[in-house]
């Protein structure tokens, strides 16, 4: 996993609440047995005017000029500004894979759905919860200023605006450590193998039917 430390990133505003993971990456692309290559189909149904299929080249497909990520000023964005309950619905980890593959490294929203939020941290993607009024202010600033960029500092837990305003955010200490260092969870968990085995022995005595 790519570590996440500090990011100076162009911001793209996606002004919709309850963006679900079906919208982030439609189901037909879930047939892939790989982890990569989902970026060209991120937000497929909003981004293109035709229907995408796995294996179909995306280069010649007609783009929806109305969709925010197709606007020239947001090309190269790495920070996604979003509304409440971002990532609701299906547990598909293909959603963070698609966002990361497209080039996003941080998502700022007033709230996230639980499973999506959790999946982001496993993929070098930082979901940042800010107060709805602050997110609203960032939307206004972003839309008013072409080239609007934010600095995200995970170590200091701040999002800094172009005018130098540093907005603090909360992140769980364990998740922060693993993301800063690009670590997965399996290695650290296996350090507790003895405890897992001891648990199993105890549980086998209490509830033998679980191990039948």
């Amino acid at each position: 996993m790519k570590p996440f430390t500090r990011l100076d990133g162009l911001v793209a505003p996606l002004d919709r609440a309850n963006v679900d993971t079906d919208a982030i990456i439609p189901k037909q692309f879930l047939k892939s047995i790989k982890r990569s290559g989902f970026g060209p189909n991120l937000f497929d149904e909003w981004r293109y005017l035709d229907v995408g299929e796995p294996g179909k080249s995306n280069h010649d497909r007609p783009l929806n000029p109305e969709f925010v990520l197709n606007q020239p000023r947001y090309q190269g964005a790495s920070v996604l500004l979003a509304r409440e309950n971002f990532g609701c619905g299906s547990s598909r980890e293909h959603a963070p894979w698609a966002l990361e593959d497209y080039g996003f490294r941080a998502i700022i929203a007033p709230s996230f759905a639980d499973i999506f939020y959790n999946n982001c941290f496993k993929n070098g993607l930082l979901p940042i919860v800010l107060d709805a009024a602050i997110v609203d202010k960032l939307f206004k600033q972003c839309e008013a200023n072409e080239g609007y960029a934010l600095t995200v500092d995970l170590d200091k837990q701040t999002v800094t605006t172009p005018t130098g305003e540093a907005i603090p955010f909360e992140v769980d200490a364990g998740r922060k450590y693993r993301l800063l260092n690009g670590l997965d969870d399996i290695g650290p968990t296996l350090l507790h193998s003895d405890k897992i085995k001891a648990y199993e022995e105890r549980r086998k005595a209490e509830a033998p039917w679980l191990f039948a």
Partner: protein
Amino acid sequence: MPGRTLYDKLWDAHVVHVEPDGTTLLYIDRHLVHEVTSPQAFEGLKLAGRKPWRTSSAVAVPDHNVPTTDRSQGIADPVSRLQVETLDANCAEFGITEFKMNDIRQGIVHVIGPEEGLTLPGMTVVCGDSHTSTHGAFGALAHAIGTSEFEHELATQCLVQKKSKAMRIRVEGELGKGVTAKDVALAIIGEIGTAGGTGYAVEFAGSAIRGLSMEGRMTLCNMAIEAGARAGMVAVDEKTVEYFRGRPYAPKGELFDQAAAYWKTLVSDADARFDAEVVLDAARIKPQVTWGTSPEMVVTVDGKVPNPADAPSEVKRHDWERALAYMGLAAGTPIEQIAIDKVFIGSCTNSRIEDLREAAAVVKGKHKAANVKLAMVVPGSGLVKQQAEQEGLDKVFLEAGFEWREPGCSMCLAMNADRLEPGERCASTSNRNFEGRQGAGGRTHLVSPAMAAAAGIAGHFVDVRNF
């Protein structure tokens, strides 16, 4: 010691290790696997040279990609076929039990888990699918996991978790005639919103919940995720215990009695404290129909499509306008005047025998309306299909002009060949009405099986209570 909630009891029984910040290693008893979210996890394990911890806890079934029509020629779509073959190969390589596509026990993962007794009260259950909350109906702690967590669980038998807050949703009183668990679920989501349960493990309680069958409780817990809750659950009672007697993977004989004695302790203590509580009056719940592109966009069947001008906030007004445009509906339209093109009866929400009986009772002796292009019934498993056929339900549906299909996820998410075409409107017993969910440009209205069946006969939504 203060009283504990059902969630506390399930959590405490599975703690392996706790970090100072509360991050917990939680032991997992059962891992249900399907073809869509598993290939990358198996590959990750292989690439890292890691071994699965306890493969006997895992059971796999292909469900999302399988055709619901004739299967004798296999899967026509090569991409879908490869995904199912990859599951077969991984299960063979790692020694994981799999109910393959043509096994009578094949079906939707959340239907076959309880049906086989693979899910049991008191278990922690995980699956790479958000509707894993279904299994909480049995007093189990059932979580959806992502693919990375799947790989972690395979390698360690544990999940890294922080405990959620506890919410209790009590539905008290008696449900009216024609009002089902699906209507209760949609009414709850209408009340608390699709993010109302975010950060919570939800226990459904109250006399109306105790009155539900196990199938009904599964429908309710299935939809917990649509309210934002990663886990939904119902306390164990006599009905729960009896459900498992004689199930293939459930304990037998003395071991069953020993298990049952433990299962009966899986209820919230009278003095248990919840972080949030919601109470609904069962008698006031009517049949529900969603009108928009989020499950919280729901009204009663005797209602009208709402006006965005009445939305509670600016963000919601925006959402409602967009939803009406996508759904091709005008504000103020009575729900009963909305005509449909297709009917889908199935999905992990509503494909069990009780659901099929409800729908069959409505269509018996009638015929699908001329404007309904397709009405399909997709049983949740091969065994549900077999039982329905023994009861003659297949004939009831076929005589009414409904199609009788093979089991799978089907048009709930349209990963196989079953889908809506752009602009088509569907009365669906599934769980999500998101844009494009049942096919790009498709328009989904979520309803109960009886309401979907009635809409298929009338050609538009009708109040099943007067049907």
